């Protein structure tokens, strides 16, 4: 069981500071959601955790500080990141996308996992030899998640999986995420604007506003919180 502890994380781009000291925790097979509006720093948070941008503060995996390590290093420690906008390899086929996802694993493991995820996402199996760029947004999002799972991560970072997807498709994607993590025991840190669906599959949640965590609690507590309901659930 992996544990992630983020402490006083400060990060940004050049002179612009986006994260003003964020702390959060995640244990084992938990699904944790970070809610926030556009520009709150959600994407920056994930990029900072997975080592894509320089940071101050601590990012501890199983107690070991990995802040500032490159994404490859974090991947080898079991952290897989699905970037915003899905980040599929549009010129590669579905199967090749999965093979790139398993780049750090042996070919036997890759072959085994490819079948496993194609079983789980039958739509991807139908499109196995099709270019990823020719698929629909929802299919690409599924592919992006399957690709990330190819590295057999113990922690999955998901950047706004609902972005650009129709509500029904989003629901589909979230239920897939839910069934996968249930089966694997993978921890999931998902940042979202769409609080409704995200809280539906999450155990706990945090609310990020202009670079700081402003509240936290279990999914049920957050769903019941009036201010959160107004801001993120649109009720």
């Amino acid at each position: 069981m992996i544990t992630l502890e983020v402490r006083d994380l400060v990060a940004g781009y050049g002179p612009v500071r986006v994260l003003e000291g964020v702390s959060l925790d995640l244990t084992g097979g938990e699904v944790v959601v970070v809610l926030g509006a556009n520009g709150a720093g959600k994407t920056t948070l994930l990029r900072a955790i997975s080592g894509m941008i320089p940071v101050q503060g601590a990012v501890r995996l199983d107690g070991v500080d990995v802040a500032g390590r490159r994404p490859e290093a974090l991947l080898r420690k079991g952290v897989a990141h699905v970037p915003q906008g899905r980040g599929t390899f549009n010129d590669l086929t579905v199967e090749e996308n999965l093979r790139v996802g398993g780049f750090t694993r042996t070919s036997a493991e890759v072959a085994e996992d490819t079948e496993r995820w194609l079983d789980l996402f039958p739509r991807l199996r139908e499109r196995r030899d099709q270019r990823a760029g020719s698929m629909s947004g929802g299919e690409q999002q599924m592919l992006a998640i399957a690709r990330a799972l190819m590295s057999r991560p113990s922690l999955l970072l998901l950047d706004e999986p609902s972005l650009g997807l129709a509500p029904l498709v989003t629901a589909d994607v979230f239920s897939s995420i839910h069934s996968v993590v249930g089966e694997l025991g993978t921890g999931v840190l998902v940042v979202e604007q769409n609080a409704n669906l995200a809280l539906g599959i999450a155990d706990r949640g945090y609310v990020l506003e202009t670079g700081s965590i402003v509240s936290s609690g279990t999914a049920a507590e957050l769903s019941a919180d009036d201010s959160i309901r107004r801001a993120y659930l649109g009720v």
Partner: protein
Amino acid sequence: MQLFVQRVFDGLQAGVIYAILALAIVVIFRASGLLNFAQGELAMFTTFIAWTFLDAGVPWWAATILAAVVGFGIGALLYRLLIVRLGGPAGNPLAIVIVTIGLFLILNDGAGIIWGANPAKVPRVFGDGRVEVLGAGISVQVLGLLGVLALLVIGFGLLFQRTKLGLALRAVTSNQESAGLAGVKVMTTLMIGWGLASAIGALAGTFTASQNASVDTNMMQVALIYAFAAATLGGFDSPLGAVVGGLIIGLVSELVVGYVDVIGPDLRLLPGFVLVLVVLLVRPQGLFGSAQVARA
């Protein structure tokens, strides 16, 4: 008929060289979206290195392979030391073009300073023999070169489609950020891409030298222009396009120069130039390229 067959083979012979150099250009473009204007001079420079080995008594094929290895190193270092500092593929393409033109000058002049401006003699690797095809005497050299080109195309096809390195190269081309997140070492992969391109360029150079039976500092300049034309015609992101484009450019140039008196040997470059303008107007992505390249 005999003359026609002769010209077709002459055109193919020239086209093979353009095709190999265009392949080098396409490999770099695919890996990093950049054009290397020093590609031809790099090829010339590594050919002089091969000549140095030859002169020291190393057999032709061994010298060629050594030159390709040296070329690989130069290409990889060039990427690491210069292109990365200018921001790599995400950097300013204008600045990178200017830097490759600077390299063009340094390599061209540098080779002259190191090895002298006069051509040096090189053996014709496939010999001077001829075979008769449809009444025309075709040099074994052409057939040998076509064979080498076929081997290169198959080799690169296998490399790109069947190996993990090829997958990494294609992944980096398609989406650098995601490739990095999936554990692909992006910098190393791009260094290998630039290295491979220079190694292919070295082959283009040694085969050109073998065809001319000499090596000199200006031997690749016209070839580079034809290679760019070939890549434009075939599509900058298509290795197959580079090869087909190279052969077409070689053929068209030879036939137009041979049969259209107004153009003649003085204006050898004109048919290729016009072809490029037409392609850019009518089908900017090239015959085999994908449309995104044109608008990139």
